[in-house]
Structure formats: C-alpha cells, structure tokens
C-alpha cells in the first residue's frame, strides 16, 4: 500500500474516532437531557453503638431506592442517594447534615437512626431549609421542629400509654417496674411516661432502675433490685442491642413470670436472636406488621429476605417506608427544588405506606398518622398480633 493508501487509512480512522466521540457525546446529552438527577442525603448510624439499626435501615433503603426506580413512578426523575455515617454521635450527626445541605446540595434528606441524633441534627436541617424526613427516631417533639422537618414514624410515648392501658384492662397486673437507659433521651423521656401510665392504670410502680450507657451489658444488679420488688410487669426501655440480654438476665434474676413491655425495638432481629425463650409473652406496640398483605410490604419483605438472608424488622421497615414516602413527595413536587419539595410535604395528603392495614397514611402535625398494633413475642422468635 503506497502513501495514498496510508493516508486513506488514517483518514478513515480519524472519521471513525470522531464519529464515536460524537455518538458518545450525544448519548451522554440524551441521558442528561432526559433524566433529572435529584440528590437525596441519607444520614444513618453506620458505625458506633446504634450501627446494628443503621445498617439495617441502609440495606432496606437501598432496596427502596431500587424499587422506586424500577416502578418508574418518578418518570424522568432519578433519585441519587448520598449515604453518610453519623457514627451514632450527635456532633457528627450535625456535621453530616451540614455537609449534605451545603457541600452536597441535596434536594432533601431522609434517614437518621437514633433519637438523640435527631434531636441535634433536625433543627440544623430546619435552619438550613432542607426538606427532611425523619425515618426512625421516635422521641417526642420532632413534629414541632419546623416546616421543613416531617416524620414517617410516630413517637413511642402514645403507643406505650395505649399498651399499658390495654394490659391493665384485664386487672391482672397490680405492680410494675421500669428499667431504662438514662443516657438516651428517648428512654429518659419514656420512663416518666410509662410510670405515669402505670399509675393511671392502677398499677403500682415498685421499682425503677437505670442503666447508664448504651454500652452496658451487665444488668444483674439492677434486675436483682427489681426482682426483690416482685413486679407483675416490667417496662424495659433499652437499646435493641441491650434488650435481648436484659430479657435473659431478668429471667435469671428470678423474674420468671413477669411480663415485659417496651417499644417498637422489641421487634428487632437482635432481640429475637438473643433472647430466645426469655422473650416469651413480652409485649410491644408497632406500626408495622411483617405479614401484612399490602403489595408494597410483600415486595419489600420478599426482596429483603432474599438479599440478606434474614427477615426484616422494625428498623428495616422504617428505612424502606421513609424512602417510599419521600418518592411520593418528590413526585408531587415534580423535581428537586427544595421549596417545591417542602410545599409538597405540606400539601401531599394521602400517601402509600407499608405500615398499617390499609396501606394509606398522611401527615398530621408533621407526624405520620398511624394506628399502633400490639404484639406478643413467642418463645420460638415469632410474634402474635393481639386483638
């Protein structure tokens, strides 16, 4: 091949290269033009003492984001989650919120795992005017932070009061006791609530003991004190990771016939796995029914169980549900503008949810409107729903 052949070959190669670059640029532009990416901040406790819950939330939220994309419910809008770890720490929770709002310029935030972090970080989100959905914190007062902060879970205090009223109705319980973790604002706030509920229901409070920290694992001294008072019912207000060991140690301390009551975190993989038979007859309220036949719930439970080889629990359900609700809000907002999203949160009305029995909910006073259900734990790790 002479000089002319080389030139032709080079020229052909240049043409091919240019055509490829053009095609690549066109395809990029078509993606860019077609899909609006909406950045969503997802702060979770992925390390630290509450990581056991945060990791489960993240796993479920990943599934939820995928399901939202698969259903095409947002049309050309694409949610892009930015996960950040608040390390189960309040200062880091505040930092992470600021970074998501200011550095990452997210359109909205969904997540948070622990109540003490919510108390610190949600006011920051409000101040920075970032529409935020709290997905897991159940301490009282989060509905009053401001018009940029909404909650996809309800505070535990009302649920616990209703549970106490329910169990007291039979007149079987005369005495009660409370064991709570002092360091956690959720449990520190719930302790007087449940004490008052006991007293209102005619159940005399015979012992109140505290656990100092979420890292404590030995409750033998406190439970020995409680066992000495022989309560009929014991409210255990501890982190999910402590609740299972507390059940076991309580039975060992002699509380063999005492009924345990608590909050939604009784419905956690940890408690079921650790407590075993010691959890027998324990009662708790929850807004989620794992066996619910709602389509969204079945899809979530099936995918979660298949992917992670374990059943979801209350933390996973909270995570999944919060993303589901966020997606509906974004759909109403029509895009990633923060003000539009905030307005959508305010005006959205009925939304699909995996909680409850009819699959519908709405915001009331910035809290999701839900009716609790009551469950009794069985020795084999299953739960039975109470009428």
């Amino acid at each position: 091949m002479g000089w002319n052949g080389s030139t032709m070959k080079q020229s052909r190669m240049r043409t091919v290269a240019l055509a490829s670059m053009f095609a690549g640029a066109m395809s990029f532009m078509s993606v860019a033009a077609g899909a609006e990416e909406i950045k969503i901040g997802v702060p979770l406790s992925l390390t630290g003492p509450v990581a056991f819950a945060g990791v489960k939330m993240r796993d479920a939220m990943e599934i939820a984001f995928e399901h939202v994309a698969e259903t095409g419910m947002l049309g050309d809008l694409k949610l892009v989650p930015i996960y950040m770890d608040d390390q189960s720490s309040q200062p880091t929770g505040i930092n992470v919120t600021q970074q998501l709002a200011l550095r990452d310029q997210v359109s909205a935030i969904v997540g948070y795992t622990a109540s003490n972090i919510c108390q610190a970080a949600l006011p920051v989100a409000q101040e920075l005017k970032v529409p935020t959905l709290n997905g897991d914190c159940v301490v009282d007062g989060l509905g009053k932070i401001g018009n940029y902060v909404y909650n996809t879970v309800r505070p535990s205090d009302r649920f616990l009061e209703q549970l106490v009223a329910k169990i007291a109705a039979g007149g079987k319980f005369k005495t009660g006791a409370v064991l709570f973790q002092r360091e956690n604002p959720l449990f520190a706030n719930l302790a007087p609530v449940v004490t008052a509920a006991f007293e209102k229901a005619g159940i005399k409070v015979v012992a109140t003991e505290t656990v100092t920290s979420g890292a404590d694992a030995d409750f033998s001294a406190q439970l020995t004190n409680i066992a000495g008072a022989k309560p009929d019912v014991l409210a255990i207000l501890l982190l999910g990771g402590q609740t299972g060991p507390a059940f076991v140690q309580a039975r060992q301390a002699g509380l063999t016939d005492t009924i345990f009551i608590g909050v939604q975190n009784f419905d956690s993989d940890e408690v079921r796995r650790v407590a075993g038979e010691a959890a027998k007859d324990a009662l708790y309220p929850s807004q989620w029914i794992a066996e619910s036949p709602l389509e969204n719930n079945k899809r979530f439970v099936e995918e979660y169980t298949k992917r992670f080889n374990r059943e979801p629990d209350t933390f996973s359900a909270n995570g999944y549900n919060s993303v589901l609700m966020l997606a509906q809000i974004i759909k109403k907002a029509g895009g990633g503008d923060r003000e539009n999203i905030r307005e959508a949160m305010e005006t959205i009305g009925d939304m699909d949810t995996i909680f409850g029995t009819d699959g519908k909910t709405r915001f009331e006073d910035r809290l999701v409107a839900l009716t609790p259900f009551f469950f009794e734990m069985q020795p084999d790790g299953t739960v039975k729903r109470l009428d």
Partner: protein
Amino acid sequence: MLLQQLLNGIVAGSVYALFALGFNMVLGALNILNVAQGAIFAMSAFVAFYAMKLYAVPFVLALLLAVIAGGLINMILEMIVFRPLRARGGSPMSTLVASIGASMALLSVTQKLSGSQIERFPFNSLPDTQWIAGDVRVTFIQLLVLVTTACVLIGSYILLNRTKLGKAIRTMAFNERIARMLGIPTAGVARWTFFISGALGGLAGVLLGVMFNSVHFLMGEAYVLKGFAAIVIGGFGSVAGVVVASMLIGLSEVFSIMIGIGAFKDVVIFGILFCFLILRPNGMFGRDEEPRP
C-alpha cells in the same frame, strides 16, 4: 438480696479482672498501654462465634481458637506497630497513640466482617443450669467466670514467678536495658508478652460474650477504661493488685446500684481512682520504683 448483690459484685469484679489482667501484662512488662485490647477482646469473641455458627465447632475448641486468635492478633500488632516504635525510642505517649490507631483499625475490620450485627453464642453453648439457694441464684457461666479468674490468677503467678519466661518478663519490667545485658532475648519476650495478653483478651471475650448473651464489635470498649482504672488502683504490673482492684470496682458498682445511686456508679469508681492517684499513686500493691531509663 444482699448476698445476691455481693455475688453479682464479685462476678462483675471477675469480669473486669479477666479483661484487666491481659491489659496489665503488657503495661507492666513493657510500659505500653495497649487500648487495642478492647478490639482484640471483641475480635476473638467473633472468631469463636463464627467457628461455632458456621462450622459447628464445639464450644471448648472455639474458645481455644479465640484464645489463640487473640494471642496472634496481639503478637502481630507488636511486630508491626509497637516494635518499630520502641526501636526508635518511642515514648509511652507515642505507643498509646499507636494503640488507639490500631484499635480503630481492628474495630473497623470487626464491624465490617460482622455487619455491625449483635450476635449471641448458640443456645446451649454451655449448660443453662442455675442453682438457687434461698434468695441467691448463680448460673453455671457465672461460676465458670469465677473459676476461670481464679485459674488465671494462679496461672499468672506461676508464670511470672516459676518460669524462665516469667522471670524474663519481670526483669524487663524492672529494666529492659539490664535484661538485654543479662542476655535475655527481649524481642522474643516482648512478643510472648503480647501473645499472652491477647490470649487473655480472647478468653475474656468469649466468656463474657456467653455470660451477657451478646457479641458485637464494640463489646470490649466498655472495659478499657475500667480495666485501666483497675490497673491504676491495683498497682501497675501487680497481678494480685489488678484482681483486688477489679473486685473493688465490681462491688462498688453493684452496691451503688443497690443503695439507689446507680446513676452515679461511674462517679464512685472514678472517685476511688482519683483518691488513689492522690494518696497512693503507685496503687494498692505497686512499689516505689526508679523511673525506667
């Protein structure tokens, strides 16, 4: 109830002693405060847990694996973290900082491998027996912890006073330069000291994981500060001192709870620590010593 709380306090003290003895070994011999002991405690517990869960290894063998794993992990830490620092004349502060870094690295690895989940050893790993005499209840595992602590105490005494390695450790604790001049292979002794310390951490991790029905990556962190308090109160390097101080800490915690000031139990413990620092800085059984060169 008093007798039961006394038993609870002694068991709690034994728990702290099991942890602190490993800690004390390295601090006493090499003047290194290895806060990675908490991470090794947790990592070793997971070794035993996964051996039982995934490979149906019997408990005793899993415990042995955990002990060896704890020893090896600590030995590796000595080789790659502490030995280079000591060779360069690193100060106690630099080894402390290095141990904090090592602790964070080990905790991250343990967290990743365990998926941040809280596990428990399989039901019936050990007999579920509980003996009841009047108001006093004691479980098999509580007895096991008490017996193990006693055995470790006796074993430590025998090791340090009746074996060549133990005498070498004591000589190094007194003065490393003199130990070298006497022909003691200090590098090897340091390695074995770390191994024993890690092995004790592994033993403690498994027993406490069974006793408290909980194995998670942060399980050791709660003991680091109390282990250090036991060493300060008991006297640096003193095995008996650590055990007595641990019992004091365990009993003061339990009795604080018993009399209704449980919210201040940590204040009580660190108040005791503070008093010792002021009144008897060498601890209960510590000796006045020349500073190490």
